[in-house]
């Protein structure tokens, strides 16, 4: 077993006094795939936002790569990226969207963005110049994933990435996510209601309810 990339201890999160997350202990080894499942409102998305350093818990400790970590360390958000349930595309071309995060990092080689588009099954020659408004829901989701894969993140967090998608788009997204682990050793945390998929690909699957982990095999 690899050393934990994330270690969470006694982590609690509340919104307006309502408990959203209450985790005693969670370790996520590097290069592993963690699956999270559970009903809506069970705390999965809250956990992902904490893992993505988008919000800090009200109590408890989060360590990343052996060091205490949180939202103040904005450099960590360059290693960790989250694909939300309904990702937003910028009002620009497909290539502009996929290359956006790269440009933030000073990288202007379009080949990286085009390779990411290939990973999600969107041929760059057909999609690069297409406008954001000319995409189907499944294509938009794949473009959003490509924008994150292009960054070659150390951690890729996916929040119900295949919800309401057609079969082909869902399969492409699943394949691309796994390819990230195989290609550069990304650590994956997958939130999904697709339990058969999670149990097939994940090293470990946790079921959550009311902010707590029900099963911790």
């Amino acid at each position: 077993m690899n050393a934990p990339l994330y270690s969470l201890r006694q982590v609690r999160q509340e919104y307006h006094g309502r408990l959203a997350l209450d985790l005693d202990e969670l370790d996520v080894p590097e290069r592993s795939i963690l699956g999270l499942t559970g009903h809506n409102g069970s705390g999965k998305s809250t956990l992902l936002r904490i893992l993505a350093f988008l919000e800090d818990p009200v109590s408890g400790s989060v360590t990343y790569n052996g060091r205490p970590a949180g939202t103040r360390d904005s450099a960590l958000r360059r290693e960790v990226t989250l694909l939300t349930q309904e990702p937003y595309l910028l009002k620009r071309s497909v290539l502009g969207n996929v290359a956006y995060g790269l440009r933030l990092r000073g990288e202007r080689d379009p080949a990286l963005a085009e390779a990411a588009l290939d990973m999600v099954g969107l041929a760059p020659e057909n999609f690069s110049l297409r406008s954001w408004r000319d995409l189907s829901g499944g294509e938009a989701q794949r473009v959003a994933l490509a924008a994150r894969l292009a960054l070659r993140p150390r951690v890729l967090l996916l929040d119900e990435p295949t919800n309401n998608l057609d079969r082909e788009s869902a399969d492409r997204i699943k394949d691309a996510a796994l390819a990230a682990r195989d290609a550069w050793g990304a650590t994956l945390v997958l939130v999904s209601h697709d339990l058969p998929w999670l149990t097939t690909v994940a090293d470990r699957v946790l079921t959550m309810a009311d902010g707590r982990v029900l099963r911790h095999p």
Partner: protein
Amino acid sequence: MDYLIQGIVQAFTLIFSGDPETFSAVWATLASSGLAMVVILALGLPLGFVLGHADFPGRGAARTLVDTMLSLPTVVVGLLVYALLTRRGPLGDWDLLFSIPGISMGLAILGLPVVMALTATAVEGLDRRLGLTLRTLGATPGQILATTLWEARFSLALAAVAAFGRVATEVGIAMMVGGNIKWQTRTITTAIALETNKGQFALGMALGVILLGIALLVNLAVAGLKRLARE
């Protein structure tokens, strides 16, 4: 009635013959408005972003204040800037009274609330997922500001055009702060007022036609930008 028709004919003659007095006033208008717009956009866009995006104590009061300033009477602004720039005023040493930069200062005060209010509204109207998405892609606060303003670019251009329409067509500030000095600070609006008082309808109408042309262009731009912003 004849003098009106004669005035219109003479107006177009002045315009198409390139009458220096007419175009001096046009230049003064464009120079003072253009300089003011630089200041208005440099301050109004970031301040409007903060007003529409950030959550800080007193935000509601600040928004109410900015909205109230949308209906600032131009003569009140003119009076305020005059008081600041006059020899006895706190900024008297700047020697800006009766100058184009002096007029621009007043116009900037007039146009700033327009850009701030419309920018805040545009930012508030953006998809709430935008900020989260930018953070998940590793954007810094400065990059979030720049990208957010770019996402709202058509609405912001609309704000700029609306502010330009307000500052280019006002008369109170240009009259009080500029002093209506021929060849120097006489703008389109102050020239119209003066020439009409003198009974010189032709020049007044020529300038009026140009002002209407500017207003038409502004409104066409507003209509086009509104359509783009909705898409």
